[in-house]
């Protein structure tokens, strides 16, 4: 038996502090999916196939509101567009991998796995990138799936009156706050949020898409002024 590579263990270990955020997030994703009327299999399928928490919550939320399917898909995909930046940023480190491994690594790419891997890769040239990355990313994946399954199991028994669905925007809020690192981003959030509130009654949940687009445009404009 070959020894378990040290870098694999290092990758797994690096995820431990993140699990305090990951586990409740996964629980909420599971509960929210069941609350929205998804079957347990659909809820778990969503976590396995999409594997991107914020977009899962948004999709489930919009499905529960019976938004048009195009809006559901579009919103979820827009939320995940940020991952193209991660893809571009991490691509040079995966250059030596075979196609098959590249695709595998891509599937596991998340905010957390990207953040851990890029920090390690830029810090240490000697790291076995594939092992470190897979150690971190597959652990995050496994914890996410288990948390979702538990959420799905628990979700069916949680009474509506507890207002557990309110946990969803709170999760988004805790993802939003660290994003507000500079002025253009604060403006993007203020404009995006305001347009979404004004457009809350618009058909097809266009308030959300309109808010997102207006927010991005505002961020770009403010950045252009500052430069």
């Amino acid at each position, binding site marked *: 038996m070959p020894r378990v590579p040290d870098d694999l263990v290092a990758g797994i270990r690096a995820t431990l502090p993140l699990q305090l955020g990951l586990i409740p997030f996964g629980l909420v994703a599971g509960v929210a999916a069941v609350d929205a009327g998804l079957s347990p299999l*659909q809820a778990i399928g969503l976590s396995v196939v999409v*594997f991107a928490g914020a977009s899962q919550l948004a999709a489930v939320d919009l499905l529960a509101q019976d938004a048009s399917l195009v809006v559901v*898909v579009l919103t979820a995909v827009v939320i995940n567009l940020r991952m193209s930046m991660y893809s*571009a940023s*991490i691509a040079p480190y995966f250059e030596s991998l075979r196609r098959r491994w590249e695709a595998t690594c891509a599937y596991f790419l998340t905010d957390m796995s990207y953040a851990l891997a890029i920090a390690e890769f830029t810090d240490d040239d000697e790291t076995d990138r594939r092992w470190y990355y897979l150690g971190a990313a597959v652990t995050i994946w496994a914890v996410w799936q288990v948390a979702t399954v538990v959420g799905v199991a628990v979700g069916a028994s949680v009474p509506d009156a507890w207002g557990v669905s309110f946990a969803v925007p709170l999760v988004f809020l805790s993802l939003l*706050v660290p994003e507000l690192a500079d002025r253009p981003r604060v403006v993007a959030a203020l404009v995006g949020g305001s347009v*979404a509130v004004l457009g809350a009654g618009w058909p097809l949940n266009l308030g*959300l898409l309109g808010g*997102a687009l207006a927010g*991005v445009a505002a961020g770009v404009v403010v950045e252009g002024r500052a430069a």
Partner: protein
Amino acid sequence: MTTTYGPLAVWAVVVAVGLLTFAIRYSFIYLLGRVDGVPPRIERALRYVPAAVLAALVAPAFVDPGPTAAATLLDPRLLAGVVAAGVAWTTENMFATLAVGMVTFWTAGTVL
């Protein structure tokens, strides 16, 4: 609220979002060598996507314009949102944000 969409529609959403998300994740890992990174203008716009989208998702859940200013401001959802934002800002901890936000929401809902 519960969706009225049937299993076919739900699975279609799961598969469509899954495939498109994988395409986004794989995009530049796949393309590397053929292009030099993300075009700067796109990259600049992408930087603001998380803040804009998350705010657009969050704000309507906390701010529900009522008939009067007082009704809008004394909404348990808004109070919980403001308190949770403070916790998120100081701790950057999702669990703490969730816990304090939910407790505030329940407490304010009982008191108001």
